[in-house]
């Protein structure tokens, strides 16, 4: 038992759960305070129930479909950030990579009609991966060869990507008929999931995302390539000493992180979710959700699957809160607290170890 509790992986899971618990307790406090001031919000426990069930108590199977839909882009941006974390880099540029990926995917799926429509989504996804990867590559090259901090270059690239996409859309768009809708056939296929969940946005993107998560896990933990990348991340000097090309490692890490975020963009823009490019002068929030997801998932690709599901469920619960008279923002506050708490996960882990060792010593 003690050995089980001293296992680093088990501790990480405990720490994440503690963070979530912390956020929930904080949420309860907020709900109760709010119920004092808002007369129609008189059932805080009812609202809590809505949150804990991810809003599924109202929406049922359809809601589950929506959660799965919300989940795939933030799972991929989460993987992007988490992968970079594991290799010692902070990819705050997921937002820009995401938008560029989404744009390229949408462009391909609308314009490249010389490809049979039913295969177009695959080409679109590949395009998104390459485009996102190229954005990541810029940060990677700058870091590896000119020692430019990846955080700074990535933040700037976020804005560059956002404005570039916004301009490209207005350049490419037909003056008379500026809005174009994706042909349904060229979207990510639903394989009947839309019928099962009774929601036309539910498609196979979630399975793609989970497969990618497993793939990233295998690369990081099982391959020599992952061993090299992590060595560069943990200790660039030691990697060099061991004959690993540290510059190549850093460049590749950022490129892969960018590709993952780019793929996340494709998951949104070539699906049946309604999302438009024209007024895109805000940074894509999915990129920053990725940071939250990666933190809560402790950068572990498998953990990120669960944390993405959790955060997607919270998002789904938000609108349903109005039924108990509360604002959707309560969920945002709770999410924020949970992310804060998971950022402090190291402290949680330490406390956990102390707690268990003390208990163990007494026995």
């Amino acid at each position, binding site marked *: 038992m003690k050995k089980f509790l*001293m296992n680093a992986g088990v501790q990480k899971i405990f720490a994440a759960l503690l963070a979530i618990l912390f956020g929930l307790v904080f949420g309860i406090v907020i709900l109760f305070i709010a119920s004092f001031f808002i007369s129609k919000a008189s059932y805080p426990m009812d609202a809590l129930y809505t949150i804990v069930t991810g809003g599924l108590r109202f929406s049922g199977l359809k809601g589950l479909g929506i959660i799965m839909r919300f989940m795939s882009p933030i799972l991929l941006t989460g993987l992007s950030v988490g992968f970079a974390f594991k290799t010692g880099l902070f990819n705050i540029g997921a937002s820009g990579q995401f938008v560029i990926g989404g744009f390229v995917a949408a462009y391909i799926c609308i314009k490249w009609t010389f490809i049979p429509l039913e295969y177009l989504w695959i080409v679109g996804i590949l395009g998104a991966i390459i485009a996102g990867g190229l954005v990541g590559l810029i940060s990677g090259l700058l870091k590896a060869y000119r020692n430019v901090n990846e955080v700074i270059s990535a933040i700037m690239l976020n804005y560059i990507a956002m404005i570039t996409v916004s301009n490209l859309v207005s350049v490419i768009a037909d003056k008379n008929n500026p809005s174009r809708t994706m042909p349904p056939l060229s979207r990510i296929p639903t394989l009947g999931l839309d019928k099962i969940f009774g929601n036309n946005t539910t498609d196979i993107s979630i399975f793609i995302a989970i497969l990618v998560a497993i793939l990233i896990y295998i690369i990081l933990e*099982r*391959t*020599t*390539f992952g*061993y*090299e990348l*992590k*060595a560069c991340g*943990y*200790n660039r*000097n*030691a*990697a*060099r*000493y*061991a*004959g*690993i090309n540290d510059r190549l490692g850093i460049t590749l890490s950022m490129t892969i992180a960018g590709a993952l975020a780019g793929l996340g963009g494709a998951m949104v823009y070539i699906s049946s979710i309604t999302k438009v490019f024209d007024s895109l002068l805000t940074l894509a929030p999915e990129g920053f959700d990725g940071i939250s997801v990666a933190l809560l998932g402790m950068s572990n690709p498998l953990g990120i699957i669960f944390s993405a599901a959790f955060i997607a469920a919270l998002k789904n619960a938000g609108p349903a809160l109005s039924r108990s008279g509360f604002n959707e923002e309560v969920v945002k506050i709770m999410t924020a607290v949970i992310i804060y708490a998971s950022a402090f996960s190291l402290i949680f882990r330490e406390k956990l*170890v102390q707690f268990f*060792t003390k208990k163990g*010593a007494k026995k």
Partner: protein
Amino acid sequence: MEYVIELRNITKVFPGIIANDDITLKVKKGEIHALLGENGAGKSTLMSVLFGLYKPEKGSIFIKGEEAHIANPNDANRYGIGMVHQHFKLVHNFTVLENVILGVETVKNGTLVMAEARKRVLELSKRYNLFIEPDHLISDISVGMQQRVEILKMLYKNNDILIFDEPTAVLTPQEIDELMKIMKELISEGKTILFITHKLNEIKAVADRVSILRKGKLIDTVDVSSSTKESLSEMMVGRKVLLEVNKTPAEPKEVIMEVSHLSMKSKHHGKDSVNDVSFKVRRGEILCIAGIEGNGQTDLVYGITGLQKLSGGKILYKGVDLATKSIRYRSLSKISHIPEDRHKHGLVLDYNLAENLILQTYFTDKFQKHGFLKFKEIYDHADKMIQRFDIRSGSGSRSVTRSMSGGNQQKAILARELDINPDLLIAVQPTRGLDVGAIEYIHKTLIEQRDAGKAVLLVSLELSEVMSVSDRILVIYEGELVGEVDPSKITQQELGLYMSGSKREKVE
């Protein structure tokens, strides 16, 4: 008998290890009390408890007869306890004076008043013969001087219990002598010194009493005058230790590496840090590059191992010029490198022991197939290495190397580097910061390698190591070779003259 410090039954537990096990230590006023022990014996932990950095699970501390509750270094300071850490805590772009007053500044109307502080600093410097220049920047003065600034900081705060954590590890032989003098001076002024070390010579030179720790337990406290180096080291290690290096004369064979006209550009200034250096290394000999720290030996090794580009010259190894070859090429052609800085280069501290043991070989067919790591082989290999090299750690091959003691980290590097069966072993300060037992082991291993017909290039600052282990010595001074000597025909004093640049001759 009045004791100035009494540590009673101190127990400090870290996950998986008892660092201090029921230790009771009593220090008399006005003595130099040495704390001797191997790496990981618990010396630093015990001092950290005294200094308020760790909270012990059990035990109490009495200062001057009164129970003291020390929760942080500020409390310690209030009880007059000061500490010189192994790695100095100085602000490099501040002057000496600014560093000394940091945290205890005199302020008048919201501005700093330096005049009084300057007067006191100069006064203290004179009284203890520290020869401090208050307006020099820390980044401009030598390591020895920096240490004196640390001492001055304690004196400025009126501390009278001074803890020195392995103070000589970073000093040249001359600076060590100076430090010993200063320590005696401090004692004569009524201070008490606790002196952490594992160097027996230093204990014999200055300490009055010595407490020996082994594996977290206090073995004994004895008078230095009534004990011998042999008895002390036996208590420290728990068995008899050979303090002398046993070896037969070398039988040098063919030249394996010829370095000619090698130059390196310095990273810090435009000049060459290594200037036109030429020498040969033969199989079956231990060639030592001796010199005081910062005279180009680090860059020279970086050049030979490929960590830094040459600015000129050739390295002919087994008939091939290595100058433009990759690091991987060099390691595949059987050059091993025990790096000077084991945390910077030698280990990925967040990897576990097994993962670190394959750092040079993870890409070979033994440990991977189609790009996938073979974990069973990796952990089996680690278990073998752990056994063969007696590497000790909390949880075996799965221990995170960050949590291991310095000596065992070094053994892990040694194991890994010998595992590739090198023809040329480059060892830079392989025993830095290690205890007698580990030093003995590493010296023995180097000599075994030599006797097996390998070439060993040893870079060391430690005079006694240079004299006892090497077969041939090249002295480096300001990036140039200034002398080639035979260790059996030279005294330490004479070698010191070469190292300090007062004597030089043309090499080759």
